[in-house]
């Protein structure tokens, strides 16, 4: 953004309002559905943040992939790249990590886990590189190409777990489990070291965007090609390409972390759409890396609480998807309201395109 004042406004924007709305929606669902409000909301609280077990072993475990994938989405959107292929990049990363974990099972953990994560990063970047090259060399809209690549990755995983990587009895569509050496070490309860990685990455990306020349270029490119031209010698295509690959790498890391920290194996449903939920996470965070951390934990708590409400009070947990969607729509509507207010005071300002994606 060329106008520092506007960036501050955007980053401080009314996302707490959208989060609050989500909580109100939970309440409305419980009441409107005629459920026992006391039991349901109690279960929601206990299942998400009401105990240290719930917070660390459920909420933060669920939050970890959402934070990593949210960072991937935010990174791309910040540079004006509409990468909606985080889901496919996650699958590529998870597949590569498990492949390395299974084929190098004799290695010690200090060597094996980093290799698995590195393989995930490389595979995620490679998967996004297809879309990046299609965009740069052939002008293919990344929205469409990344969407196609999500499906191709999904069928790729389906093939792997029913073909070359299937468990030896050839009955079940999944791989054998990773050995202990190939798993991310535990942190607290069920929570694994992957969460620390996610936190570190969020802070690192925040610093990068804020204080480095690369971060500056990304923000300028995200603000639009015209801004990039007027800011001097910023090579728009090159910066966008870099952001695209970095976004894929982070999503691939997310897949590798999920495979080595939670599932310990590859199977078709390894991601229940983290890559899509991540768009809501990134948007609620207004594309701010540290905000993504908060939004990811918020969504993790929401999902953990909803699962507990289903278990203890019979409230269907699928309504979380509705709430996630409403959060996105609320953010968009609030953005629009703010833009209208801004254009009333300064009618010449062009509509900000990059921040909202």
């Amino acid at each position, binding site marked *: 953004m060329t106008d520092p004042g506007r960036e501050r406004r955007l980053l401080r924007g009314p996302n707490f309002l959208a989060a609050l709305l989500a909580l109100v929606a939970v309440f409305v669902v419980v009441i409107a559905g005629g459920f026992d409000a006391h039991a349901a909301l109690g279960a929601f609280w206990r299942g998400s943040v009401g105990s240290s077990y719930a917070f660390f072993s459920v909420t933060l475990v669920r939050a970890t992939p959402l934070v990593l994938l949210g960072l991937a989405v935010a990174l791309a959107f910040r540079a004006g790249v509409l990468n909606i292929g985080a889901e496919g990049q996650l699958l590529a990363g998870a597949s590569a990590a498990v492949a390395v974990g299974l084929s190098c099972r004799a290695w010690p953990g200090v060597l094996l886990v980093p290799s698995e994560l590195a393989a995930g990063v490389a595979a995620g970047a490679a998967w996004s590189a297809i879309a990046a090259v*299609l965009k740069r060399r052939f002008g*293919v809209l990344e929205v469409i*190409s990344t969407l*196609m690549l999500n499906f191709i990755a999904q069928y790729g995983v389906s093939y792997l777990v029913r073909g070359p990587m299937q468990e030896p009895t050839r009955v079940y569509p999944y791989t054998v489990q990773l050995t202990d050496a190939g798993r991310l070490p535990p942190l607290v309860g069920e929570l694994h070291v992957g969460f620390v990685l996610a936190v570190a990455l969020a802070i690192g990306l925040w610093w990068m965007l804020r204080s480095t020349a690369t971060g500056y270029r990304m923000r300028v490119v995200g603000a639009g090609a015209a801004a990039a031209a007027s800011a001097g010698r910023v090579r728009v295509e090159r910066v966008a390409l870099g952001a695209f690959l970095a976004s894929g790498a982070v999503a691939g890391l997310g897949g590798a972390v999920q495979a080595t920290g939670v599932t310990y194996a590859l199977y078709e449903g390894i991601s229940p759409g983290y890559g899509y939920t991540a*768009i809501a996470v990134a*948007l609620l965070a207004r594309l701010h890396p540290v905000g993504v951390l908060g939004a990811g934990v918020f969504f993790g708590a929401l999902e953990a609480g909803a699962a507990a409400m289903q278990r203890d009070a019979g409230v269907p947990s699928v309504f979380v*998807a509705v709430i996630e969607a409403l959060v996105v*729509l609320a953010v*968009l509507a609030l953005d629009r309201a703010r833009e209208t207010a801004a254009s009333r005071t300064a009618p010449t300002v062009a509509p900000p395109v990059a921040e909202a994606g």
Partner: protein
Amino acid sequence: MSGEALTFFLQASVRSATPLAYAALGELVTERSGVINIGLEGAIIAGAFGALVSAGVGGVAAGFVGAAAAGAAVAAVFALFVVTLRADQIITGMAISMLGLGLTATLYTALYGSGGAALDTPTIGPRALPGLHAIPLLGPALFDQPVGTYALYVLAPLLAWWLYRSQAGLALRAVGEYPEAARGAGISPERVRWWAILFGGAMGGLGGGTLVLAQVGTFTEHMSAGRGFIAIAIVVLGRWKPLGVAAAALLFGAASALQYRSQVMGWSLPYQASLAFPYVLTLVALAGMRGRAVAPAALARRDVADT
């Protein structure tokens, strides 16, 4: 493949292609107005659910009406954000897909129990067209299908005629290519886009309705299974032209039908390859279109000037 197997395969291809063709022809109109609706998936699943509810009350015909209405209702939310509020099309679309999938799953569980009882709806079966269905090979594939499929044989050419030969079709294309110029000519881009999005939603809903009323006979959560996104690929592969889109839908239908055939026939090719093939083809086709402006020029653009 033996003749009988081939006939069976072609028939299954047309059957799989039918819901895709409805959704893709609708999305084609939406995209021609310069709007890409990634929320189509939400319209399809809403259509499926609407078909279940309204067919239970008023039979198959009411089911299709309910399907179209539900799809259009979901699309109306999309239009409100994208056209009226000028929100980002892609992000809104993703949210609308999530909304449709989540809302139908929640309502289904709430209305029919947590297990989601397998409800049967009245369905329409294939009705062979006298004479035509006796054509060797193609006859049974094309002319022994439910009525909804036959409607497409009329609809696709009609849409092509409408798009290129009618005043309204010209207005639609003008808005998709150059909304400012269209406005200069006295056309309201907002109005055109609202209608194009509603039409796309209703067609998506009919696609979902076809799944329930002419194929599966019941509703299951997430039964749209990504068909909304497939339809977007079909529009691209069909080069934003009605007849091309119909042909591309058939190709995706064939790829989906092929997975069962290759399993039966013990081909060495993994069935996932046939499922992934249309997506790869779409990417290749897109790359090959480089430099030739086939996509509507204003597609996914957010900043239509007011004057």
